[in-house]
C-alpha cells in the first residue's frame, strides 16, 4: 500500500482541479459562464481552463443567465456535459425559468429519453462582506424543484469529490459552493483525489452522544466549532454534514438522531420556508419516539440578507447554536 500524502489545499484549488480533471477525462465537458475564460471567474475557480483546453471548452458568454443556462440545455441535448457558472447566488435568479421549467423537467418530460447532465455551480451564502445580491442562500428554491440534485461541499476533499460526481451525473445538479469556504484550507490528497460516490450520502463529521447538529456547507465548520465549545457545557455533540440536500440521506441523519435523541438543524438560509423546516419535519416524522425535545432550528433571520456591516448579527454563530442546544429540554432528563 502506498502512503497517502496529505497536503494543505484550499477548497478553491480543489474545485479548479476537479474541473480540470473532469475536462481532461471527458471531452464532452464544457465550462461556460460570465468571465470564466480569460479571467478565470471572479473567484478564479476556472483559472487556467481556457488556456489549457481552449476557448471552446471554457467559454465566456454574453451577460445573460437565462441564455447561459438555456444554451447549456441545448448543449446537453446534443451530448455535451455543460458546467455552468452563475457568478453569484442572486444572479442565478434570471435563469430560474430555465431551471424550473426545463432543466428540472426535461428527463421526465421525455420519459428518460433526453436527460440533461448539466452542473450548475453557484457560489452561495454570506460571510465575505458582499453587498446585496452577493450573499443569498437560495437552496430552498432548488430543494422545492423536483428533478434537480442539490449538493454542497464543506471540506476540500468533498469539494473535489462532489464536483466530479456532479459532472459525472446524468442528472442536472445544482452545485452550491460555500463562497466563504473558498479559501479555507484543510488536508487533502491531491495525488489521488476521489469522487464522492454515490452523491446523496451524508457524513458524520464528529461523533457525539448528547445531541445531533444537522448542517451543511458553510455552517459545517461553525457547527464543529460549536461542538468543541459545547464540551465546556458538558454536551457531547454529533455533527452531521448533509453534503446532499437532494436526495436526502434520511438513513444517516435518523440513525444519528435516534442515537442522541435531540437535534438542531443549522443553516444560513432564512428559517421560514427554509431547508430546516423540511429537515426538522422529516426527522420528527421518522424519529418521533426517540426525541426528547422538538428538533430546533438555528438559521438566518427571515430578512433580505443584511449589508456587510450587519451580517455578523445575521449569521448563525457558535453562541446561537449553543443557545438552541440549551433549549433542548435537558431538565426533562434529570
Amino acid at each position: 500500500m502506498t502512503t497517502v500524502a496529505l497536503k494543505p489545499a484550499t477548497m478553491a484549488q480543489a474545485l479548479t482541479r476537479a474541473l480540470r480533471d473532469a475536462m481532461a477525462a471527458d471531452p464532452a465537458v464544457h465550462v461556460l459562464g460570465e468571465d470564466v475564460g480569460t479571467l478565470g471567474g471572479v473567484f478564479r475557480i476556472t483559472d487556467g481552463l481556457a488556456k489549457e483546453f481552449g476557448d471552446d471548452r471554457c467559454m465566456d458568454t454574453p451577460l445573460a443567465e437565462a441564455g447561459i443556462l438555456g444554451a447549456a440545455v441545448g448543449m446537453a441535448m446534443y451530448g455535451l456535459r455543460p458546467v455552468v457558472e452563475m457568478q453569484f447566488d442572486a444572479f442565478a435568479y434570471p435563469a430560474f425559468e430555465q431551471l424550473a421549467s426545463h432543466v428540472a423537467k426535461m428527463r421526465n418530460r421525455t420519459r428518460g429519453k433526453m436527460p440533461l447532465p448539466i452542473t450548475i455551480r453557484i457560489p452561495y451564502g454570506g460571510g465575505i462582506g458582499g453587498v446585496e445580491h452577493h450573499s443569498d442562500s437560495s437552496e430552498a428554491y432548488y430543494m422545492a424543484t423536483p428533478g434537480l440534485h442539490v449538493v454542497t461541499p464543506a471540506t476540500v476533499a468533498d469539494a473535489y469529490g462532489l464536483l466530479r460526481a456532479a459532472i459525472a451525473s446524468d442528472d442536472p445538479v445544482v452545485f452550491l459552493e460555500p463562497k466563504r469556504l473558498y479559501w479555507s484550507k484543510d488536508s487533502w490528497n491531491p495525488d489521488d483525489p476521489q469522487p464522492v460516490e454515490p452523491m446523496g450520502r451524508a457524513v458524520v463529521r464528529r461523533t457525539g452522544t448528547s445531541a445531533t447538529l444537522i448542517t451543511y456547507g458553510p455552517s459545517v465548520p461553525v457547527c464543529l466549532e460549536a461542538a468543541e465549545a459545547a464540551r465546556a457545557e458538558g454536551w457531547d455533540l454529533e455533527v452531521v454534514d448533509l453534503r446532499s440536500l437532494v436526495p436526502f440521506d434520511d438513513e444517516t441523519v435518523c440513525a444519528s438522531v435516534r442515537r442522541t435523541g435531540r437535534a438542531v438543524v443549522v443553516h444560513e438560509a432564512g428559517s421560514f420556508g427554509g431547508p430546516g423546516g423540511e429537515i426538522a419535519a422529516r426527522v420528527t416524522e421518522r424519529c418521533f419516539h426517540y426525541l426528547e425535545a422538538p428538533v430546533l432550528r438555528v438559521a438566518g433571520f427571515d430578512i433580505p440578507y443584511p449589508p456587510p456591516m450587519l451580517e455578523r448579527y445575521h449569521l448563525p454563530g457558535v453562541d446561537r447554536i449553543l443557545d438552541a442546544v440549551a433549549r433542548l429540554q435537558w431538565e426533562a432528563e434529570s
Partner: protein
Amino acid sequence: MTVMEQRSAYRPAPPPAWQPRTDPAPLLPDAEPYRVLGTKKAEKADPELLRRLYTQLVLGRRYNVQATALTKQGRLAVYPSSTGQEACEVAAAFCLEERDWLFPSYRDTLAVVARGVDPVEALTLLRGDWHSGYDPYEHRVAPLSTPLATQLPHAVGLAHAARLKGDDVVALAMVGDGGTSEGDFHEALNFAAVWQAPVVFLVQNNGFAISVPLAKQTAAPSLAHKAVGYGIPGRLVDGNDAAAVHEVLSDAVRHARAGGGPTLVEAVTYRIDAHTNADDATRYRDDAEVEVWRAHDPIQLLERELTKRGLLDEDGVAAVREEAEAMAARLRERMNQDAPLDPMDMFAHVYAEPTPQLREQQEQLRAELEAEAEEEEAR
C-alpha cells in the same frame, strides 16, 4: 482556430477612429414580405417541391380540423390550431435535412408531424397522457415547448454544440409574435449571433398572442427588424406563401450550414381559428378581419399556382383530399383508443435513479392502488 477565435476580437476604437463593425444595410429586411406564388418567380419553382408542399398543406389543415374535433369529444385536453399557418408549419419541416433539429413551440404540432413524427405521439402533450410523446432523438425534434420562447436558447446551444463537434447540423426554432417579447428571445438571438451558431429563428407573426394584437406587442417596423440589433440578417416573408417561406427558410438553413450564422425570419400570417378550442376569438376580433385573411389562404394560393401551371387538376385535388381523409380517419381511430397509462411512470423519470424519497412515495401510491383495487373487487 477555435470557434470563439474565429470572430475577430473587436473592441471599439476610440471614437475619433470609430467604425461600425458590420454594415447594417444587408441585415435589414426588405420593405415588403417576400412572395413567390402569383409572381414570375413561381414559374421557376420546382414542381415536385410545390406538389409535396401542397399535399402536406392539405394534410395539415385536415389534421388541425380533426384535432379540434377530438377536443370536443374529450379525446384531447386542448388543441391550438395552426389553420391558416400551414405554409409556415410545413416549410419549417421541409427546409431541414435529416440531421438537422427542429425546436417547435406549443402551436407547432403540424411541423412536428411534417418532420415525420408519429401523428399520435405528437399529440401526447395535448391529449394529456404524458408531457411529450415522441423520442426527440428519433427525428431530431425537441419536445413542444409551452413556456414561450424558452426553447430558443436550447436551439442555440444545440447548434453551437454540433458545430463544436464538427457536425454540420442546423437548428430551426419556431416562436410566435408574442414570444418575441420575452427576454429569452433576446438572449437566444444574441448568443446565436455572438457564437455565429447555425440557427434559423422562424417567427410566425399571426397577428395575435391570444387576444393581444401585434400593435400592443411591438412598435417595430417589423419583427424582422429586430435582427439588425443582433448583427444578423432579418428576412420578411409572406407566411401564407408556402413557396416563399420554403425558399427563405432554405436559404437561411444553407447560410447557417455554410458557417454564415443565424437568421431571423418573420413570416407574416394569420391565426384563422381561435387561440385554442377553449378560446372565444369573437371577444377580441371581427369576423371581417378573418375573412380578409381567408381570401389569402395558403392552400388556395398554392392550389391556384399549381393549377395555373398545369401541375394539378381536379383529380389531383381529389386524390390529395382523399389522402387527407384517410389520414384523419386513422388519427381518429387511433385517438379513440384509450392511451395506455401507468401512474408509476410519474416516479420513473424524474431522475436517472429514483431517490429514496421517490421510492417511498411510489410504494405509498402502489399500496393505495392495491387497496383500491381490493375494495373494488370486494364490491
